[in-house]
């Protein structure tokens, strides 16, 4: 065996260790799209809230009109659903390109470790809404989403870990500025997603 073969052995070991523990076909474009949906949804919500004169930015508010609350949940739900659908479609396409299977033990672990903190946070946010604690919803969703990303990052691109931490920090900071939830929400789910989606896109595009 020559030196070249030994080097090849080492890189093969690294590659297989990576591929057998991480799902790497995450789509950067889907991150960018999710960010755009969030910004559009946030803008619509802001328009709705200010138009009706029930709320001015910076004021910790309690919504009394439940129909408006329902509309806001529908907007958030639509943003989330569109994001999930684009992520699924684009990730699947990328997995096919990369010759990686979509449904593997690793991608299952990725999904489970992501969904458990996420669903916990989602239910918690709905309960806050039920109790009328609207101001706490933005910090809660950002923190739980960040923890979900951090938890899932073990099974995918390690950069996802930093996105998770940033979301958590943003959520904690937003606790100090209650009443600006929408602003932080658009920053966390909109801007951060676009920046990270672009980063992943550039990083992986250069590689391939």
């Amino acid at each position, binding site marked *: *065996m020559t*030196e070249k073969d*030994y*080097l090849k*052995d*080492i890189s*093969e*070991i690294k590659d*297989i*260790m990576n*591929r*057998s*523990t991480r799902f790497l076909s995450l789509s950067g474009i889907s991150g960018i799209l999710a960010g755009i949906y969030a910004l559009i949804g946030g803008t619509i919500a802001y328009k709705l809230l200010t138009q009706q004169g029930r709320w001015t930015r910076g004021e910790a508010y309690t919504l009394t009109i439940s129909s408006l609350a329902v509309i806001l949940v529908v907007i958030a739900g639509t943003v989330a659903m569109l994001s999930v659908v684009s992520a699924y479609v684009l990730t699947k396409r990328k997995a096919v390109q990369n010759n990686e*299977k979509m449904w*593997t*033990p690793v991608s299952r672990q990725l999904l489970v470790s992501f969904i458990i903190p996420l669903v916990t946070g989602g239910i918690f946010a709905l309960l806050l809404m039920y109790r009328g604690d609207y101001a706490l919803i933005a910090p809660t969703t950002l923190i739980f989403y960040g923890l979900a990303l951090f938890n899932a990052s073990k099974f995918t691109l390690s950069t996802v870990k930093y996105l998770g931490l940033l979301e958590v920090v943003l959520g904690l900071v937003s606790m100090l500025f209650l009443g600006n939830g929408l602003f932080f929400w658009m920053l966390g789910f909109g801007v951060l997603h676009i920046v990270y989606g672009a980063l992943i896109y550039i990083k992986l595009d250069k590689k391939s």
Partner: protein
Amino acid sequence: MHNIIKNINKIFDHRVRLGIMSALMVNDFVDFNTLKELLNVTDGNLASHLKALEKMAYITVTKEFIGRKPNTKYNTTPAGTEAFKKHIVALEKIIKMQQ
């Protein structure tokens, strides 16, 4: 130099066996089909290399049923882990010496 060469494990001097060990080192268990996809080899080829590693007592085999489908999972034995680590250290040393 002679010592290092001695630590190069002949058993791992093959792409498929090296791949199997790499995957098993970083996972609790890996099943047959996952290994097959990961290493891009045929059933027969994979099975024969798994047999070789099993014979050396470097890996253990667990057979179970998921529903009605049989599922065969593999993991490393402490001896296998030890041997593979030694092999990697030897590889790294040789590369460093030749550079």
